C-alpha cells in the first residue's frame, strides 16, 4: 500500500495507531478471508449433493396458482408435482401424481388414476379431491389467477372463471373417488396432458390454505417456509428474500429413492455480470444467463461449461396495422424482406440464435413452420415503390419501440441501418421502460415494436392463438376469418397430429402473408454449467425435472 510511504514523515506512533485502526475496521467488516477446507462452494456442494443454482430474479411467491414467472417455475417444480411430469429430454409426458390415465376415443374424456402412495409433506395422502378443490381455486374469479386459462379446455371452466356460472359442479372435473379424477374437455385438446405439468394446474394443500386464509386469498402467507405443505421431490427449507431459497430433499415424496440431490440453493442473479463473476469464483453450478460478450471467451477457454441450446421462443417486431404507414401490407413485407437475419444472428447475436422467417420455432414437437419469404432487397424495393414510396421517398417515418435493454438496442440499431441502406427509409429508435412500453403496446400507441414470446407448452398453438381477432396478446390489429376458424374451431377438433399440423401451417401461412409481425430470430437458452452437473439434458422448453439431476464431484 502506498499509504505507508506517505506516512513516513508522520510521527511513527501516530502512523502505527492509525494503521492499526484501519486494520481493525477492515477486520470488523467480516473477519479473515476465506478459510477452512480450501474448496469452493461449488466443489463443496458437489460433494454434498447441493446444487448452487443461479435463478435470474427473486421469486415473487411460491403459490403455484398465483406465480407467473420462469424463476418461480424453477422452484415450484421442485416443490410440487402435477398429475403428470415430463421426461427431461424428450418432454414426453410421464406419470406423476397420476400413475396412469385413459383417454376416451373422441379425445375429450380423461380418467386419471392417482397413485395411492403419494403424500403431502405433512403426511396427508394426495387425493383426487385435492385436485378437484385446487382446480376450483385456480378458477375462482376473485383469486385473479393469471394462468387460469390453462384449464379453459375443461367444460365450463371459462364460464366459471369469468363469473358466468357460480356452480362449480357444472365444470367438467369430478373426483369419482379418492384416487380417480375424471375430466371432460370441450374439444380433444391434444396438448392437454402437457398443461398438467404446468404449475397452474398443480394441487395445493387445502387445509393449509384454509388455515391461513380463504380460497380466493392472494395475500395469505400459506406459501412461506414453516407454513407451506407440498407434494414434490423437495421441501422448502429457507427463503430469505433477495438472498436465497433453499429446498431440501423430501422423504415423504413417493419416488424419493430416485431423487439424487440433497438440496437446491437458488440465488436471485438479476445482475448478469455479478452472476458471471459468481460462476468464475466457484459459487454457482449453473447460471441463468451468459453475458453476450463473454461467450467467445468461454468458448475459447472453457467450452465444456457453455450450454447454448434452441429455446421455444420467438423474437420479432410487430407492426401497428391500424394506422399508416404499416396499414399497408406491402410496406410491412418490404421491411421484412430487407432484414439480413443471417448477418444479424452471426454478428450482433454472436451466432447463438437461429434466423427466423415465421412465428413458431422449428421442431416444436415435430412441427415445422412454412417458409414463405426470404431475404430479397430487390423485391422489397419494388414493393415499397408500389406502396408509393419509391426509394423511400415520401415515407413518413416511424418509431421502433423497444424496452430498455442493451441487446434490444443493438439489434434495433442494426435493423435501422438495414432499412436505411436497402429501402432509404429512416426510422427512429424509441426505448421505453418496461411498463411504459407495455402500456403503449396495449393502447396501439406505437408504429413498430419489439416483441418476444416464449411458449407455455410444446405445441404450435401456444404461439398461433395469440393472433386470433382481438386476442389479448394480438396487439397488432391483425384479423383474418379463416385464421380464426382454424385456430378456434378446426385445429382443436382435429385429433390426428399430421392433419392438425397441416392446419397450423395453413394458418401460419396466412399470418406471415399478412405480415403483422416481422420475424427475426428464434431464442436460445444460454447457461454456464459446471461439469459436475449431470442429468440436465438440453430441451426446447429449458425445462428441468429435478428428480433426474445429480452431481458428480469427480467430473
Amino acid at each position, binding site marked *: 500500500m502506498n499509504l505507508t510511504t506517505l506516512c513516513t514523515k508522520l510521527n511513527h506512533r*501516530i502512523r502505527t495507531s492509525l494503521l492499526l485502526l484501519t486494520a481493525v475496521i477492515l477486520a470488523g467488516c467480516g473477519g479473515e478471508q476465506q478459510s477452512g477446507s480450501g474448496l469452493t462452494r461449488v466443489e463443496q456442494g458437489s460433494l454434498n449433493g447441493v446444487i448452487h443454482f443461479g435463478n435470474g430474479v427473486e421469486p415473487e411467491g411460491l403459490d403455484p396458482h398465483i406465480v407467473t414467472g420462469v424463476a418461480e417455475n424453477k422452484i415450484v417444480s421442485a416443490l410440487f408435482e402435477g398429475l403428470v411430469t415430463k421426461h427431461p429430454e424428450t418432454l414426453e409426458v410421464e406419470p406423476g401424481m397420476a400413475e396412469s390415465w385413459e383417454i376416451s376415443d373422441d379425445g375429450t374424456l380423461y380418467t386419471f388414476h392417482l397413485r395411492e402412495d403419494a403424500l403431502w409433506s405433512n403426511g396427508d395422502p394426495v387425493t383426487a379431491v385435492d385436485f378437484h378443490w385446487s382446480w376450483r381455486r385456480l378458477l375462482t374469479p376473485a383469486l385473479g389467477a*393469471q394462468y387460469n386459462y390453462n384449464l379453459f379446455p375443461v367444460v365450463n371452466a371459462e364460464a366459471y372463471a369469468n363469473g358466468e356460472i357460480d356452480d362449480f359442479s357444472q365444470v367438467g372435473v369430478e373426483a369419482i373417488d379418492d384416487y380417480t379424477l375424471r375430466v371432460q374437455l370441450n374439444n380433444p385438446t391434444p396438448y392437454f396432458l402437457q398443461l398438467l405439468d404446468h404449475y397452474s394446474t398443480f394441487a395445493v394443500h387445502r387445509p393449509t390454505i384454509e388455515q391461513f386464509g380463504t380460497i380466493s386469498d392472494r395475500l395469505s*402467507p400459506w406459501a412461506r417456509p414453516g407454513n407451506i405443505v407440498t407434494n414434490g421431490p423437495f421441501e422448502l427449507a429457507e427463503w*430469505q428474500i433477495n438472498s436465497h431459497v433453499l429446498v431440501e430433499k423430501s422423504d415423504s415424496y413417493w419416488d424419493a429413492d430416485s431423487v439424487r440431490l440433497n438440496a437446491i440453493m437458488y440465488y436471485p442473479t438479476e445482475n448478469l455480470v455479478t452472476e458471471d463473476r459468481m460462476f468464475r469464483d466457484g*459459487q454457482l453450478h449453473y447460471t441463468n444467463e451468459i453475458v453476450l460478450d463473454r461467450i467467445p471467451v468461454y468458448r475459447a477457454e472453457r467450452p465444456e461449461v457453455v450450454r447454448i441450446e434452441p429455446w421455444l421462443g420467438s423474437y420479432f417486431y410487430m407492426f401497428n396495422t391500424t394506422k399508416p404507414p404499416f396499414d399497408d401490407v406491402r410496406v410491412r413485407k418490404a421491411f421484412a424482406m430487407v432484414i439480413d437475419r443471417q448477418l444479424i444472428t452471426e454478428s450482433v447475436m454472436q451466432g447463438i440464435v437461429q434466423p427466423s422467417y415465421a412465428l413458431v420455432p422449428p421442431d416444436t414437437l415435430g412441427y415445422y413452420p412454412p417458409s414463405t419469404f426470404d431475404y430479397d432487397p430487390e423485391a422489397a424495393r419494388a414493393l415499397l415503390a408500389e406502396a408509393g414510396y419509391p426509394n423511400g421517398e415520401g415515407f413518413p417515418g416511424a418509431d421502433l419501440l423497444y424496452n430498455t435493454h442493451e441487446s434490444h438496442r443493438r439489434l434495433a440499431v442494426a435493423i435501422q441501418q438495414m432499412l436505411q441502406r436497402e429501402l432509404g427509409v429512416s426510422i427512429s429508435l424509441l426505448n421505453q421502460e418496461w411498463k411504459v412500453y407495455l402500456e403503449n403496446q396495449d393502447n396501439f400507441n406505437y408504429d413498430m415494436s419489439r416483441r418476444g414470446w416464449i411458449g407455455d407448452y410444446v405445441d404450435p398453438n401456444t404461439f398461433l392463438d395469440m393472433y386470433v381477432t382481438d386476442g389479448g396478446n394480438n396487439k397488432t390489429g391483425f384479423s383474418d376469418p379463416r385464421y380464426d376458424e382454424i385456430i378456434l374451431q378446426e385445429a382443436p377438433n382435429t385429433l390426428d397430429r399430421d392433419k392438425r399440423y397441416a392446419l397450423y401451417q395453413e394458418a401460419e401461412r396466412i399470418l406471415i402473408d399478412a405480415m403483422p409481425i416481422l420475424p427475426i430470430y428464434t431464442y436460445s437458452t444460454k447457461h454456464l454449467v459446471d461439469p459436475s452437473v449431470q442429468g440436465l439434458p438440453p430441451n426446447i422448453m429449458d425445462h428441468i425435472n429435478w428428480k433426474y439431476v445429480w452431481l458428480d464431484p469427480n467430473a
Partner: protein
Amino acid sequence: MWRFIGLRTLQAIPVILTVITVTFFLVRAAPGGPFDDEKAVSPQVQAALEAQYRLDLPMHEQYLTYLADLFRGDMGPSFNYPGRSVNELIFQGLPITAELGFYALLVAVGVGVLAGVIAALKPNTVQDYVPMGLAMVGICMPSFLLGPMLVLIFGIWLDWLPVSGWGNTPGDKILPSITLGAMYAAYIARLSRSGMLEVLSQDYLRTARAKGLPERVVVIKHALRAGLLPVVSYLGPAFAGLLSGSFVVETIFQIPGLGRFYVQAAFNRDYTMILGTTTFLATLIVVFNLLSDFVAAWLNPRLRYQFNKGK
C-alpha cells in the same frame, strides 16, 4: 432548547406528509400498472386483482385508507410479493443495509480522516497532493465502476475475497463496505483537511507548540478535536445517504438489503412498496437532519438564540 426541539419536530410532520401525498399520486400517474405483463391479463382477472388490492375504490378513498393504515403502522401488502407485507420486507432489508452503511461509514471515517490529516500536516506538498488527488478520484469514481474493479482484483485475480454475498462466506462484507464507503471517505478527507488546516493555524496551537508539547500531542489532543467538527456534523446526513444510496452496491454484490427493494418496486409498479420505502427513507432523512440540527444547536448556542429571537 426544549422549545426549539419541539417546534422543529412539529415542522417535520408536514414535510413527511407531503412526501407521502406526492408519492401516492405520482406513482398512480406513472404509465403502466403492477399487473401489466408481456402476457395479456384478461379483463376479469384484472378486475379481480384490482379488487384484491382495493384499487377498485375511488382514488381519494384509497388515499385516505392508506393514510389510516399507515397511521396504525401498516404499510399494506406488497403487490409484487403476494403474501408479504411491506413492513416485513422493509424490516428484513433494513438491518442488512444498516450494517452495510455502518461498515461503509467506518471505512469512510477511518480512511477519510487519516488521509485528510496527513494532507493537512504538510499542505501543498506531495504529502498533500497525493491523498487529495486520490480523494478527488474517489469522489468522481462511481460505485458501479469501483465495485467491479475491486472484485476483479481482489476476488478473481488475487482470489483473496468472495465476489458476492453478505454474511455467507467470511470476508464477503469487506469489498461492499469499501465500495460504498469510498465516495464518502473521499469527501470526509477533504472536509477533515480543510477543518484541520483552519485549526492548525490557530493561536492556541502555536501556544501549545510554544510550551513545548510534542507535535503528536498537539495534533491528536488539540487540533483533531476542533478540526474534525465539520466531519462530525456531516456524519448524520452521510449515514442517511448511505442507507438510501446503497442500491448499486447491493446489486453488484448480491446483498439482500433495502436499496434493491426500493428500485425494484419502482420498476414493478409495486405501489405500496414504493410508498413504503419512500416514506420510510424520507422519515429517516428528516430524523437524521433533525438530530444534526439539535447537535449543532447544542454545540453552538448562537443558533438557539437566533431561533428564539426570530420567531
